[in-house]
Each structure stands twice: as C-alpha cells, then as structure tokens.
C-alpha cells in the first residue's frame, strides 16, 4: 500500500436509473486499489446522497448516471453539497454523458468526468494523485 490509507469515496446511483453494472465494476476496482468505497444502493435521492457523504465524511463522491438526467441531478447535488458545507468533497461523474455536456459539468464544479470505456487504472491513478481531502 504505497498510497495514503483510507481515502473514502461514496459511489452513488441517483434517481430512477437502475443500471448499476458500471458502478459495481468501479466499486470493486477501487476497493482492490485500497480505497474505502461506500455504496448506498440504487434509487438514491440527491438529499440522501448528500446526507451519506456528510455522515460518512467522504473525500469523494462519484455519481453514476446513465439516464440522461445529469444536467438536472448533478447541479442539484452540487448545490446541496455547498449548502451542507461540503465544498471540499471532490465530485466525479461517470456514465453516459454527451461530449457537449462535459465542459458544462466541469464549469459547475465537477472535478472529472469518466465516460464509457475509461480504463479502470485511469480512475485509480487520478484519485491517488489527488489523495485524501479530509485530513484535519
């Protein structure tokens, strides 16, 4: 384990999107790379996701969206995070995101968007480089 221990990441499925194969593959890859992955399950509301991030003191929130609702749900989650005093939490988005929406999401404050076909090591390398955000 050459990385910082115990980087905590919440991986979330929000709304009615039930396609969880991708998020499960990423969960396993991150676990095997030494991360602590908190997966709260399908059909989470934005409020529930933010509550989970707060109570779990996560460094990162990864949102998996394959339903085309990203331009509605992601801004909502970012606002709720800010309202909750959680601006230090890095937000990643994965799933089916049209090329034209990626700059918009980044401009809103998303740290990185990982689309289909992203090699798993790319995500791991990115998170390792960024490290933990919660050291007091």
């Amino acid at each position, binding site marked *: 384990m050459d990385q910082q221990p115990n980087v*905590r990441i919440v991986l979330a499925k929000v709304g009615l999107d039930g396609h969880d194969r991708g998020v499960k593959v990423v969960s396993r890859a991150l676990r095997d*790379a*030494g991360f602590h*992955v*908190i997966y709260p399950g399908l059909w989470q509301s934005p409020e*529930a996701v933010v509550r989970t991030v*707060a109570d*779990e003191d996560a460094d990162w929130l990864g949102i998996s969206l394959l339903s085309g609702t990203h331009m509605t749900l992601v801004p909502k989650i970012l606002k709720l995070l800010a309202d909750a005093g959680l601006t230090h939490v890095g937000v990643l988005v994965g799933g089916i995101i049209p090329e034209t929406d990626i700059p918009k999401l980044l401009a809103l404050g998303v740290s990185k968007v990982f689309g289909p076909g992203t090699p798993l090591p790319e995500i791991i390398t990115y998170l390792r480089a960024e490290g933990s955000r919660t050291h007091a």
Partner: protein
Amino acid sequence: MLDDLLVRLGNRDRLALARVLTLVSRGEHLAAIRRAVAARPEGTPVVAITGNAGVGKSTLVGKLAEHLRTAGKSVAVLACDPQSPLTGGALLGDRVRMPSKPDDLGLFIRSVAAASGHQAVAEHVDLMIRVLAAFGFDVILLETVGAGQGDTAVRDLADVVVVLVQPESGDEMQWEKAGLFEVADVVVIHKADLPGAERMEAQVRELLSLPGCREIAVLRVSSAKGQGLDQLWNAIAHCPKRAGELEPAAQLLLRRAQQVLAERLHDRAGSVTPLVDRWKRRELDEAQAADELLHVLVD
C-alpha cells in the same frame, strides 16, 4: 484546527462528528479526542448485532433503527464491513439495507472498515462509541462483520449482544463448534417468515437449556414482514446484566489502561528498544524484561 473541531463537536456539529470519527478510525489524535468526550454517559445503551454473513444483520439493524426512531429515540449506527488484508481496500455496503431518510437528523449511520485481526469490529470502535454517546444519541447499534469463531470482542464493547441465526443454517453441532452463542445475550431466529424457523427455534432453545447455559432470550423476527421487532427491543431493554464479570465501568478503565500502555510503548520507543535488545541478547529473561518494560511505561 483540532481544537476548533473538538469545540464544534461539543456544539453538536454533525460534520464535526463525522470528521472526528474519521480521525478515530485512522488512529489520529486519539488522546485529545478521548479527553474531549470524557467518559461515556451512563445509560447510553450499546447493542451489538452479530452473526454469519448473509443472516440479515444490516437489514435488522435498519429495522431496529426505524423502530427506535418511531419510539422517539435518536440512533447512531456503526456498521462494520471487512477490509481486505491484502490491499487495505473495503467495500462498505451496509447502507444499502438501511433506511434512507436524509431529513431525519435523529439517525446517524457510519460505515467503518474492520481490518482482519480485530475480531469483527473496527479498530478504536470503543472510542467511536464514546464520541457518539457524548454527541447525545440515545441508542448505539454496532453491526459486526459476518462473525465466525471466537469473535468475542463485541462482548466487551456492547451492553447487549444480539446473535442472529436463520432457518436451515446447519445443525446444533455447527453452533457448538462456532461458539457463537457464547457471546449472546439475545438470540434471534431471523428471516422467521421462511420455512423451518420454528424448528430452528426449538433447536436453539434445546441447546441453550443444557446445564451450564445462561438465561438467554430466544426470539423469532422477520424483518421482511416487520414482525417481532417490538419483542426484540423489549428483550434488549430488559436484558439482565451479565453476572460474574467486571462491571462495564471497570472494563472501560481496564481497556483505557491497556491503550495508554500501548501508546506509551510507541511514544517511549527510545527506552523500549534498548530493553528489547538486551532481552534478545538474553541478558534478561522474559519475565525480567517484561518487569523492566512495565517500569519504563509506568514511571
């Protein structure tokens, strides 16, 4: 930074609570945090839920938490899941089976990774419990990782240990081997809506009625049907204190003393290392070395 955090914790700032639990789980600033939360307030019940993987611990913890919330009690849940001994990684998925009520501030759920070798609960869980009790939660539910043989640490951490079994899960010799009931204050036949629950209950009762067994409540509970939760909480709340053991306060002090010794062993490495070297060179026998070590640590 830390002082500020601990002041916020004292002011019941929930984000500060979450961060302090992170520090505790990382083993950082333990002494300062311990001072800040003082002793666990008397009467904050700690209930451990244990049992084999897949028996329904998370689900039952979730149902119990909902039940307690309905009764007006605030609840903190510490849900332990295993951490890989190879990579240090962990997939913490207990929240999947627990209630998702973001507006309810009377419910706090925290997932913690338990390294192997820590007896099915995470390191420093005792201090996490104290932090949560000091924060003012009425009840603390501690979910262990799927327990196996000899995971008895929960017994020292919790006032009441609830052991879960399910129908069609081996015969009584399996449990005798596993020693699962040794730690139990309450035994729950979970998934009691499945066939075989009554026979299971009969087997458990027979086993527990053998000479030399303690008085242990046995209940059938179905989380799927929401049956038996009332009776379960009743059994937990009225569980008789364990006889023939140090009282919890004394155990707390003993554990605290052990932790102080461990911390000093680390802090005073300068004095400890030469002693260890002398022992390795056989200038001292083990008993003498241990004796001198105690002086180094206590003086």
